[in-house]
């Protein structure tokens, strides 16, 4: 009897010890995984954010208040639209209590949660408002999904709106967009999961990438359009997954998988939906899986139907499932892996958008660039892989000013694992692009993960320059010359001035002219000012000459008959470049001649300043005697 009692005691002690060890192990696993909870709190009436609202995360679902438990000793009693509920005492000492910022947003990063998830209660309160409670909402490891809770509070007090996490109108959703994934280690293997082909094998890598053993068939259908509109060609590299949730845009790379088979690996985008089902996102945790959420995480419905006669052995649209495929490969993808024609095999598939640790970043070569309106500028952009990240990244941009455009030199980039790849974004502006700064957001997207960097784009006025010319460039003192000025670039309207004298009013035309009477030779300086405050100047040389004076003479004078005399023309001032035209047609400055009879000879000469293109006539006479 004593021995039997000892046996019972020993068995009990072992059970207690085992339970403690299991609890400790479970506790360690919980600490290994963290999720992120973020969201916003807004006023139901105004739609405006509520700053300072308190958001509480409680590790214990609320209970319905039973009549006998309506005591604050058991917790805080709140009257909700679904009856009385008891907030557990942990509310007072909850680890996670945060306040919303001025945008009404809150963030709880690094909330402990075991794999695959843990249910929490999220409560939002604000002074003067009714509380909102979302009960039993799963917080997933950040590498898988983040929880977003959107609270809308109404004014009142001592009441609460209560949602269950499973309610269709519960204000919760999941996404990767917040970019705050922390680093869980590999989920623990579970006893009912095996790694042999044909069975479910969940193998998160050290980078928390979900990897599954999946039966792969070949798509075929050459010439047909896929669900995202791609026309299938022989040798294509893409895959089909059985959910619309992981379908790339046409020719996009938002969702990619890495497939391994017989030591060969290929990365391919998801351009088709199938096989068998269009709503079977078996790679998502069961709490958010679109269909077949009673299946194990990672188990394709077709595999369950084929192997276990799940759903009567049929797919969603009723056909009998004739293979356990969870992925379809395009011919090029299958060929790279070494598949034979039309053959099907078990492969290992990594779902790259589920990446948590492996990550990428995007950066620009500078935080600000300037471009003159109407000109173009290029921004080098670098995509950097970390912790083994290797996938196509779709670059994108936003925030361009009006009347401008931009284009990447590559529509997709593929940074090598732990390496980087660069592309450039060329921004093209037009003269009508608004001046000033704009914040350009340059992003890279893989699946639901988007990384962004910002660049300040400063659109400056087009540089202003000017040219001028005066006609004529040589004038006589007192005469005028017309100077034309042309503005190039800049922003209309323009103001013009010549030699310090403004003329005309601000005008849209980039050309203007003015008549100038310079008093001396030199540069005529023209200045243009534009509406952006820019100034440019140009100069044009003008020669100013004193007025020409002319005369002519005969020497000797008087002269006897038959003696030779010389007629000579004389010009002073002017440009010094003259031509002559005598009455008898002679065109030299002087000429000699004799006269046989006594007489008085009248002569004249036209002297032309060839530079100024001005002529004057000089007259002179000779007396011939016997």
């Amino acid at each position, binding site marked *: 009897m004593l021995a039997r009692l000892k046996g019972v005691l020993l068995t009990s002690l072992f059970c207690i010890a085992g339970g403690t060890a299991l609890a400790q192990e479970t506790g360690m696993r919980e600490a290994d995984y963290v999720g992120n909870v973020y969201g916003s709190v807004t006023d139901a009436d105004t739609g405006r954010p509520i700053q300072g609202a308190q958001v509480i995360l409680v590790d214990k679902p609320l209970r319905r208040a039973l009549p006998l438990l309506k005591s604050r000793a058991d917790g805080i009693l709140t009257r909700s639209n679904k009856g009385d509920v008891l907030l557990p005492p942990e509310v007072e000492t909850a680890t996670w209590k945060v306040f919303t910022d001025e945008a009404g947003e809150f963030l709880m990063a690094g909330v402990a949660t075991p794999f695959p998830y843990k249910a929490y209660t999220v409560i939002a309160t604000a002074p003067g408002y009714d509380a909102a409670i979302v009960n039993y909402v799963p917080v997933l490891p950040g590498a898988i999904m983040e929880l977003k809770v959107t609270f809308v509070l109404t004014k009142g007090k001592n009441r609460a709106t209560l949602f269950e996490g499973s309610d269709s109108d519960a204000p919760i959703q999941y996404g990767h967009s917040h970019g705050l994934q922390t680093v869980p280690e590999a989920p623990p293997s579970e006893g009912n999961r095996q790694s042999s082909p044909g069975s479910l094998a969940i193998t998160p890598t050290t980078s928390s990438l979900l990897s599954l053993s999946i039966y792969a*068939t070949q798509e075929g259908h050459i010439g*047909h359009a896929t669900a995202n509109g791609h026309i299938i060609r022989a040798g294509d590299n893409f895959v089909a997954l059985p959910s619309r949730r992981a379908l790339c845009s046409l020719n996009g790379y938002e969702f990619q998988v890495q497939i391994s088979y017989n030591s060969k690996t290929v990365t391919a985008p998801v351009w*088709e939906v199938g096989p*068998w089902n269009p709503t079977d996102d078996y790679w998502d945790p069961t709490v958010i899986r679109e269909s077949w959420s009673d299946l194990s995480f990672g188990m394709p419905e077709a595999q369950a139907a084929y192997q276990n006669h799940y759903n009567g052995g049929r*797919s969603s*649209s009723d*056909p009998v499932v004739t293979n356990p495929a969870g992925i379809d490969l395009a011919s090029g993808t299958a060929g790279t892996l070494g598949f034979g024609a039309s053959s099907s095999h078990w492969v290992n598939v990594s779902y790259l958008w589920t990446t948590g640790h492996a990550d990428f970043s995007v950066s620009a070569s500078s935080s600000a660039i300037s471009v003159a309106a109407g000109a173009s500028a290029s921004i080098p952009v670098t995509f950097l892989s970390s912790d083994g990240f290797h996938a196509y990244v779709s670059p994108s941009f936003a925030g361009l000013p009006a009347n401008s455009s931009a284009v990447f030199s590559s529509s997709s980039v593929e940074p090598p694992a732990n390496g980087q790849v660069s592309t450039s974004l060329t921004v093209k502006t037009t003269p009508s692009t608004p001046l000033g700064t704009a914040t350009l957001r340059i992003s890279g997207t893989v699946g639901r993960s988007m990384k962004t960097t910002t660049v300040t784009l400063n659109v400056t006025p087009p540089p202003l320059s000017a040219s001028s010319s005066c006609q004529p460039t040589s004038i006589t003192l007192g005469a005028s010359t017309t100077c034309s000025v042309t503005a190039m670039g800049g922003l209309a309207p323009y103001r013009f001035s010549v030699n310090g004298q403004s003329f005309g009013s601000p005008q849209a035309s980039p050309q203007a002219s003015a008549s100038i009477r310079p008093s001396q030779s030199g540069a005529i300086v023209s200045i243009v000012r534009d509406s952006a405050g820019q100034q440019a100047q140009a100069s044009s040389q003008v020669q100013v000459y004193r007025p020409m004076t002319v005369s002519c003479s005969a020497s000797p004078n008087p002269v006897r008959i038959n003696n030779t005399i010389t007629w000579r023309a004389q010009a002073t001032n002017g440009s010094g470049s003259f031509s002559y035209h005598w009455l008898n047609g002679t065109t030299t400055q002087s000429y000699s001649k004799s006269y046989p009879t006594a007489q008085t000879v009248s002569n004249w000469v036209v002297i032309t300043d060839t530079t100024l293109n001005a002529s004057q006539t000089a007259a002179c006479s000779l007396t011939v005697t016997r």
Partner: protein
Amino acid sequence: MSSVPRRLWFIVFIVLLVAGTLFAMARSHSGPFRTPSVQPASTLAVEARLRYTSGGIPELWIVGPGEQTIKVGHLSPGEGVNDNFAWSPSRSLLAFETYDLEGHSPLTTSHVWVVRRDGTGLVAVVLPSPNERFSTHLAEWRKDGILIIRAMLLSGDASYTFSYATREVRPLSGSTTQ
């Protein structure tokens, strides 16, 4: 006692009649029919049947009164016919649905077809642009002879109406389309 042999002879006669009918049907085709088959009304004695060729290609036949058989057409290799045949309320049109036997591309490879009872006028129901490529699924015939079809688009499920008379496919009001 004399009524018992007469009743026995009557039962034997019925059994032979049924057996003869089945034998005649079997002789009139090169291969056995397989289910599914549907009968719009027993009085019309018209039914649709599937038969597979020796190469495994499915054929759709309509069997009329007096065991007249009409071949509607054969499907592409790798295509199957779902078992949700549906006769129009007037029994003049038969709608059926084909799909990819290996489950490839369920969003784009399932198609609804409509054919007259005499096997002529086979029409594929194709969604209006830009959704031509997406699959169509059989929902039901309305009493006015309009066929309701279901489509799974990228943005979600949507319903359309199909008029055999005009061949027009239109979104059903209140249904989502993209």
